[in-house]
């Protein structure tokens, strides 16, 4: 799943003209480190939902990669 998740992030970055990131680290902040704005985060959540059926923002606060991985573990 982590690989798929990295690919989704990089697909969004590529469309926005940003370089791919090589690996994911739990502490990466989605806005400050990955460079996502609200529209990117919205895309990320629906793409993850399509892959896994999980709405990562269901319980509210998501700022980091680690929080998404935790949400996916359930």
């Amino acid at each position, binding site marked *: 799943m982590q690989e798929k998740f990295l690919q989704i992030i990089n697909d969004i970055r590529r*469309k926005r003209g940003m370089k791919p990131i090589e690996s994911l680290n739990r502490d990466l902040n989605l*806005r400050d480190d990955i460079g996502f704005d*609200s*529209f990117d*985060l*919205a*895309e990320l*959540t*629906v793409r993850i939902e399509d892959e896994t059926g999980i709405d990562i*923002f269901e319980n509210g606060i998501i700022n980091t990669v680690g929080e998404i991985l935790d949400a996916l573990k359930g």
Partner: protein
Amino acid sequence: MEHLFFVDRERGIRKTYEDLLSELSLKRSIGHVINSDKSYEVFIDLVLSLINGVEVELVDSDLSHNEIEALGIKSIDQRYTFGDAHWTAQNSFADLLDLIDIGKSSWRLTLYTSGTTGRPKKVTHTFDSLTRSVKIGVNHKDDIWVFAYNPTHFAGLQVFFQAFLNMNPIVFVFDTPRSKVFDIMQEEKVTHISATPTFYRNTLVTFEKPVNTIRRATSGGEKFDPYIETIMRKAFPNARLNNIYASTEAGSLFAAEGDVFKISDGIADKVRINQDGELLVHKSLLGQSVDILLDEDWYHTGDIVELTDQKQFRFVSRKSEMINVGGYKVNPYEVEEAILNIEGIEDAIVNSRTNRVTGSILVASVVRNSEADHIDEEFVTKELSKILQQWKIPRLIKFVDKVELTRTGKKARN
């Protein structure tokens, strides 16, 4: 004592009302059209037009260059000149309010709002229709406002007049990076905030502590839900929360605590709900416009509501096909047209997909012709980015063999 007027830390601007008065005294002319992305300049021009009682148009800073051209504003290069004004730097804020009191009867402000036909609707407001919900008084003299809307939008103007007419400080955070908003709010000791649910969803999650100075927090422009209420209560534990129904056509009409709107006695006979559940507003509550279609003096808002009792209602859905993407209303037909203009694409339909970050995003199903294998999601996104604002670009693009039609032959929209 100095009275703070406008703070924009991102741009290093910190102005007092005394600064405003002296800057006004230097101005000898103003354009018929206010078209600036500098918020402070927009506010100065608004006040200048008011004290001189002239008619001005305010161009929405979200419009693209092509959209502005398509508006066909004739007076875009014309200016009003005031000669040696009656206004000098020695005048006080009370003098300014006196001049506004005289100027306001002839002052008109024209705004443009996104319309379903693709061409923005032109709506002209009077001072009264624009400030109907503004409250002035000693209770408000110590308010400090967070400014979180686009200043060229109707909601932004409401906050501006609420703060300005009470001589309150405006702390501008509209385009400030979200991670800086908490410190600004804390340090400026803000007491009032009005913003969209999207702003709250995306900003309040960065707060590690509550902002205890906020006494009132308002949500407007999109559907309010229990999740927004929860995060607002957590971020602003000492605030009363409310939720505003307003539109560019009608101004600010109803307020709610929670999601049930009250119809006040003053406007009860000017609001009704038809058999389809659609909220209708009497023309006397609207700004002047030739673009607003009336049905025997009633304006159809496109909002489907349900009455919870005689004087209260709750939103159910939008009748119109406009899609609200993070507070921006998008006409799916405009986006479809842009996609169809890409060579090699035969058909397209744009729908919305809900999510908890921006409410909705756009998704598109696209049919490409047999020679257009080079067209993929990235290609379409890049082509659209050249002509559309970022919130109008579908974030999920599927390639399909044909676009689904309904029984009436219309494209099937979700």
